């Protein structure tokens, strides 16, 4: 990375507490444009919370979190921070796609309707354009024939692929995946990971919270191991996985590998 390039995500000593429970303790990391970063760690280590902070679904208590150089959720005026108006925060989120562990598809809408909802309501795209784009995206995730299906009639893997298509419909510059395969039956994990792999190959910047070590090894550019709200270890995924330096990383990997 050259010094002049603005990183996609830059976290600088980010901390976050829920009540007296500090879930993020001074997290600093950088995600370059086009990078695929995997966040690994035991449950409760703060990886999901960190992901949600990037999208401002949670607010940061301390430190600075920037996406493409712009502060998330706040405005800097002089040396003071001002909370963003909900509309401004919504505008920031448009450019960041998020995929959830439990898919969170809208059950009262068909796959196509799920996908065109935000482009039409938020970006004011015309219906015909939105539908054409949605069909294209569904085809891209291998579900070209499922446009009229309601989420309840799709398998978990298919639902998650629709959810990915829905996030992509907003043309995000960054995609966040919060344990996208954790709620899936084992035989359905592959189809979702394949879609994510293709997305990574297309140059999308991605931050993926997952327990899929294989995905990390094969697809990720960087791996960050978190535990207890701190970054324990980070680096090239193949190196970290093959030769972990820290005891906690070793202990965790010995259980999941």
């Amino acid at each position: 990375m050259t010094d002049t390039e603005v990183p996609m995500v830059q976290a600088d000593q980010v901390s976050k507490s829920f009540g007296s429970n500090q879930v993020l303790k001074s997290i600093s990391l950088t995600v370059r444009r086009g990078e695929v970063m995997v966040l690994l760690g035991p449950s409760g280590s703060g990886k999901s919370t960190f992901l949600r902070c990037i999208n401002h679904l949670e607010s940061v208590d301390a430190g600075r979190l920037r996406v493409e150089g712009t502060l998330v959720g706040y405005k800097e005026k002089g040396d003071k921070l001002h909370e963003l108006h909900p509309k401004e925060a919504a505008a920031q989120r448009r450019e960041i796609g998020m995929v959830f562990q439990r898919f969170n598809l809208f059950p009262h809408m068909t796959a196509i309707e799920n996908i065109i909802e935000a482009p039409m309501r938020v970006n004011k795209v015309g219906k015909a354009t939105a539908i054409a784009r949605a069909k294209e995206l569904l085809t891209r995730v291998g579900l070209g024939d499922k446009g009229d299906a309601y989420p309840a009639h799709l398998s978990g893997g298919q639902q998650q692929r629709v959810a990915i298509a829905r996030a992509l419909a907003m043309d995000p510059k960054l995609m966040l995946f919060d344990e996208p395969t954790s709620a899936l039956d084992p035989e359905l994990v592959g189809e979702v990971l394949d879609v994510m792999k293709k997305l990574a190959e297309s140059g999308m910047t991605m931050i993926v919270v997952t327990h899929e070590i294989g995905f990390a090894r094969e697809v990720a550019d960087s791996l960050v191991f978190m535990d207890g709200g701190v970054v324990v270890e980070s680096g090239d995924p193949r190196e970290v996985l093959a030769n972990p330096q820290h005891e906690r990383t070793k202990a965790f990997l010995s259980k999941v590998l």
Partner: protein
Amino acid sequence: MTSSGPDRSAPGSTPSPHGADAAPVVKAVRLRHPWRNLIAVIILIIAVAFIWDAAGRTAYHWDIFGKYVFDKRISEAAFNTLQLTVYSMVIAAILALVLAVMRLSSNPVFKSISWFYLWIFRGTPVYVQLTFWGLLSVIYPTLSIGLPFMHPWLEFPTGSTLTFFELAIIGLALNESAYLAEIVRAGILSVDRGQEEAATALGMTWTQSMLRIVIPQSMRVIIPPTGNEVISMLKTTSLVTAVPYSLDLFARSRDIATSLFAPVPLLLVASAWYLAITSVLMVGQYYLEKRFARGIGAARPTKGAGGTTAAPTTTAQFEVVSEAYNTDEKEHQ
């Protein structure tokens, strides 16, 4: 068929999917329920006896019932009752949505206002409230629009501006909205938090996610108890006599009964009409529930080809593309 009997599958042989060897059909003697039958017969006898007796009983005055059940005054009154029900329910529903959203908002001022409203309107009897509305012109002889302590911009005399019919609707609607607000709140709370989160993550504003995502899903929970409220409202309209509004179904049949000195047959007339309207409303509720069960309830046939004539060709194209994708996928593995 019988020879291969119990030995299920020899190693290597695949059992035919439809089972050439059908398992023996269960032909058991059905369990008898003698007590059930006996009780049913007894109840049937009692019911028949009651109807037989009622048909001949003079106090019911079936002749008067027959003469007045389709009387124009009665059918007009029934229409008034229906209007009271529909108008007050529609106003109540809009108010309830506002109240419920206020109650769930993070704004402490909105929350308190909503709570206070509910406290007042659920805490006092509807009959008392309706009486109050009837006395509105006594308490506030003029209605004015303007700023407090300043000369009003517009002024109306209350009595001639609002009819008893309108006051009855206001009274019923405000009371009902307090109950409906709680139903709406329960409905909104029943929607998974992840739904709002997903909408938020897509860049939708709070209002958009409420109107497009959360409220449509909450309808499934809201409609059954609301149907109950509509039916309840139909009958509560019989209290508008407190306003006093006297052209609703119950008041009208009571007036006719008084002039005829025959209360019983006209009570029957009113009951028959209430029952008939309730039945129609129940049918409406059934269809509304079906509509909002979209994507959730029992499997429903998918929309007929999406309504576009071009659909078949486009899907064919997509199949080709997705097939290409699939082969691609295999290469990766």
